[in-house]
């Protein structure tokens, strides 16, 4: 076995030295020589000296890990040098021995799927996980970055279990995490509607909807715990929609044939998040969660291969802080904002995920992005974000464009109103192409179908980038039903419409209001205009079955990880996954790791690794401030977004992807020459926050395109023009390639996005038969 440590290079017996004598420090290698079977020791001088009295031979045994003690005025510099040298040697060793490297790598990518039949894996695993006793939990700290559904529920549950939680968010309150914006609903296999739903069916729909690129065992577990989520939320006082009998109501979402979606009007995410927030508040009041609002995580601190804390910036004072813990959980949401325009919040970012990626966490399937078919179209260049119109609207709304190109022209020039176009002159293209699922095909299919019509010139607004979502049929249907219920005989057309509009209002009122405020048109009277927009990222940090990343002690949950949705996420499944991870999975699985930490004791932030991370963060921000160029962060973000949308958007090909990679690199170089951020680091500086986030997007964007280039198949939201069905009934549809691409791409950082190393996690399917998805 090889060992590397530090030692003093004594030239005479130790006792002959005075405590104040300066002695050289060396790096000591020891290894077993296979030929002679003897231990060999080799010392190499490091060029650093210290006094005997300041030397700590047992440095590795105490949490601060200081070989040179603080009594030496230069202890920090000296220790940094020692660890730098050690690190270099470690890296070089790996490089020499390829076999070793391969070994380490493949073992790192062990998904740790428990053995046994699918429907018993989770139960068996839970029963075999080591538990931490309550007294010991009090001595264990966990950092949670993010307070959305994933981070909020995890923080509350971990604190309830007895761990000391430190939670971070960049907003001024945990209640404002972007989960708040989720509209449509949350899935659960409750089968309250008795329409044949079951755990297996939810599992099957999710794997199929994800186009067979997710890990079966994780998805099965998700379906298993889904019912508990609803029970838990109701117990917390989440006011889900109910029927007149007082029981919970359901609606259906795209890609499935049952009604399993629970909702609270168009504000389901808000209600669920406020539930998690209230659970957090209870623990904050008890002192079990320490909440850090307006704080941004800017680095992960890794000590001896384990995640031990983070560096965060207080966004109000600018102070750069060190926070330690026995484990770090990243729940920082998705990275859709790499496209600049998306349905994400303005502050949504990839920073936390990207920082851990650079510290050793593999990034999986970065190119798997969901483009949502129903968003409000862009109105001009001032546009800062796009607003989603919930998929639940496709339950009742019908999507169409005019059949005749002349009508399109007339609409654009304002000569014709959509309501004046006759039924037979409308092309309900989803119903036409996919009779079985109609308007409820999965999102990727619906988005591409819209793009196909728009590319063919049938877009209905002045930018040519919109299709209609029409409620007139639904309003009439509901109106007639209601009139019947009320016993109105021969209701007039007006009465029907009025009654129908009332029903639609109770179901979707807030969405219709939102539309009206933005577009300035009344969606009850004229069809809404919609267009696809970037919405969700299925890709994310690679995690194993326990939700641990490739860095021991660093976990990743919610949208930030890659695990459950494969290449396409079904509607109402992200909320389910976030809460499953945070309430019901992570609190158990983290015990496996933390049970080995009960003897570690408090982790000090006074260590070389913390100091090094902190100074790197400061240096990076300082560098950005010092460029003093001419262009604001938005300039680069908008440019990056355009490159991504054009070449890495709804439809991708080799040539475009190569162009994107080149362009993004160029843009990154330009950033370092031209960025302008005023002010300084040590005060509230929103431009600096923005610039630092954009910089991370500029790096991620490149990896994103590289991943899309590697995957020469069409699956889910990833559509490669090179891979389509050439003939048969599916002609023109996306073509998956299971022979060559049935794997998760997990990228390892290696100094630069372009040098990332690809690791493949082979996907095995035992429960679900691989089929080409058909929604026809």
């Amino acid at each position, binding site marked *: 076995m090889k060992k590397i440590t530090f030692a003093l290079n004594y030239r005479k017996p130790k006792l002959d030295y005075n405590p104040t004598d300066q002695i050289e420090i060396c790096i000591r290698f020891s290894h077993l020589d296979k030929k002679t079977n003897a231990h060999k020791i080799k010392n190499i001088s490091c060029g650093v000296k210290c006094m005997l009295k300041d030397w700590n031979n047992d440095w590795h045994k105490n949490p601060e890990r200081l070989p040179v003690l603080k009594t030496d005025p230069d202890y920090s510099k000296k220790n940094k040098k020692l660890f730098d040298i050690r690190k270099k040697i470690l890296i070089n060793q790996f490089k020499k021995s390829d076999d070793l490297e391969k070994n380490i790598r493949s073992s790192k990518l062990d998904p740790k799927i428990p053995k046994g039949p699918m429907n018993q894996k989770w139960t068996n695993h839970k029963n075999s996980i080591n538990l931490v006793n309550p007294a010991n939990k009090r001595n264990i700290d966990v950092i949670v970055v993010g307070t959305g559904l994933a981070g909020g*529920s995890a923080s509350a549950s971990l604190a309830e279990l007895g761990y000391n939680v430190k939670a971070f968010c960049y907003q*001024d*309150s*945990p*209640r*404002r995490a*972007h989960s*708040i*914006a989720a509209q449509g609903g949350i899935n659960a296999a*409750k089968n309250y509607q008795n329409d044949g739903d079951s755990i297996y069916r939810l599992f099957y729909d999710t794997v199929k909807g994800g186009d067979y690129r997710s890990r079966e065992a994780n998805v099965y577990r998700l379906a298993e*715990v889904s019912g508990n989520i*609803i*029970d*838990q939320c*109701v*117990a*917390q*006082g989440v*006011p*889900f*929609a*109910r*029927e*007149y009998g*007082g*029981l*919970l109501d359901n609606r259906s979402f795209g890609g499935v044939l049952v009604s399993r979606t629970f909702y609270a009007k168009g*504000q389901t995410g*808000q209600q669920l998040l406020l539930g998690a*927030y*209230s*659970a957090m*508040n*209870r623990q*904050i*009041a008890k002192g079990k969660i320490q*909440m850090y*609002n307006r704080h941004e995580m800017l680095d992960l601190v890794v000590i001896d291969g384990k995640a031990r804390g983070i560096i965060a910036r207080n966004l*109000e004072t600018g102070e750069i802080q060190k926070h330690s813990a026995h484990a770090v959980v990243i729940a920082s949401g998705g990275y859709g904002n790499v496209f600049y325009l998306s349905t994400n*919040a*303005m*502050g949504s970012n990839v920073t936390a995920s990207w920082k851990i990626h650079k510290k050793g966490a593999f990034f999986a399937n970065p190119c798997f992005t969901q483009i949502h078919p129903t968003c409000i179209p862009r*109105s*001009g260049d*001032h546009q*800062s974000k796009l*607003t989603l119109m919930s998929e639940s609207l496709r339950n009742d709304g019908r999507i169409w464009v005019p059949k005749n190109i002349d009508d399109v022209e007339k609409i654009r020039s304002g000569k014709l109103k959509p309501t004046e176009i006759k039924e037979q002159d409308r092309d309900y293209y989803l119903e036409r192409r996919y009779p079985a699922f109609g308007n409820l095909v999965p999102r990727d299919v619906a988005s591409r179908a819209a793009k196909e019509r728009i590319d063919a010139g049938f877009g209905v607004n002045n930018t040519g980038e919109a299709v209609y979502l029409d409620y007139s049929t639904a309003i009439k249907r509901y109106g007639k039903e209601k009139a019947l219920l009320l016993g109105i005989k021969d209701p007039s057309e007006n009465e029907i419409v009025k009654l129908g509009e009332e029903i639609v209002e109770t179901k979707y009122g807030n969405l219709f*209001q*939102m539309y009206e*405020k*933005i577009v*300035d048109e009344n969606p009850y009277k004229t069809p809404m205009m919609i267009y696809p927009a970037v919405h969700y990222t299925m890709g994310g940090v690679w995690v194993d079955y326990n939700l641990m990343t490739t860095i021991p002690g660093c976990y990743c949950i919610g949208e930030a990880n890659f695990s459950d949705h494969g290449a396409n996420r079904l509607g109402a499944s992200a909320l389910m996954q976030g809460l499953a991870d945070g309430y*019901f999975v992570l609190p158990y699985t983290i015990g496996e790791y933390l049970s080995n930490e009960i003897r570690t004791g408090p982790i000090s932030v006074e260590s070389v690794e913390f100091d090094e991370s902190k100074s790197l963060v400061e240096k990076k921000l300082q560098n950005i401030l010092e460029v003093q160029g*001419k262009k*604001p962060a*938005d300039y680069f973000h908008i440019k990056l977004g355009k490159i991504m949308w054009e070449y890495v958007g709804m439809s991708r090909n080799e040539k475009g992807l190569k162009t994107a990679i080149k362009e993004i690199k160029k843009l990154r170089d330009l950033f370092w020459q031209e960025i302008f951020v*005023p002010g300084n680091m040590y005060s*509230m500086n*929103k*431009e600096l926050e923005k610039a630092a986030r954009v910089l991370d997007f500029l790096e991620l964007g490149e990896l994103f395109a590289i991943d899309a280039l590697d995957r020469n198949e069409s699956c889910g939201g990833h559509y490669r023009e090179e891979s389509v069905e050439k003939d048969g009934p599916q002609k023109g549809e996306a073509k998956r390639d299971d022979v060559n691409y049935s794997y998760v791409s997990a990228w390892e950082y290696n100094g630069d996005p372009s040098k990332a190393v690809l690791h493949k996690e082979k996907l095995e399917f035992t429960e679900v038969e691989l089929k080409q998805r058909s929604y026809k």
Partner: protein
Amino acid sequence: MDLTLKVWRQKNRNEKGKMETYQVNDISTDSSFLEMLDILNNDLLEEGQEPIAFDHDCREGICGMCSLYINGKAHGPDSRITTCQLHMRKFKDGETIYVEPWRAKAFPIIKDLVVDRSAFDRIQQAGGYISVNTSGNTQDANLTPIPKDDADKSFDAATCIGCAACVATCKNSSAMLFVSAKVSQLSLLPQGRVEAKERVLNMVKQMDKEGFGNCSNTGACEVECPKGISLENIAILNREFLKGSITNN
């Protein structure tokens, strides 16, 4: 459209602030108010100046982060919307627009238009929850039917986004609408009844401690509330409070 803006600028918590005047030109009526501020900020940056700091995140009226006092109205002209949902079509070409932060003793200004609303979090921590631990064995969600009316009313109260426009609007800087929304959401549900008494007493106590003013039933809060939280909730809070105080004595 071309506009003159008078904006509150303040370096940090300690320094004094003042109104500054800016000019923005060529703004599309379709752009949102915050997009107009983005344009102004990018103009400022091009001149090498510090942009105006303001809070915002979701930009779709749900996170409650945006918080501007525009022309003397919380969230500006137009009703039932947040600042981020305000569009420039609500203004006239050539108009002068005044932009200020929320002003209330309990909300210190941090910078420019950004205020510290952590008092709201502390009120919620004082009792805005149902004490239930996470467990896989909570009772089935459909075991206790809840009359649709109660559920709907509870939901309506629960839609409060914690933006604090109600406080900014109130001449007494009272937080009653905000507090009452949580109190009634939970007290309307059977699972929230158990702790109803302590909840209302503790939340009101914390509200007073944070330095919010008294409610004098003027009703300005309801008018400016972007989510239409109804004054009825204040009546429910008062009822709960009275019940709580009596039985507590």
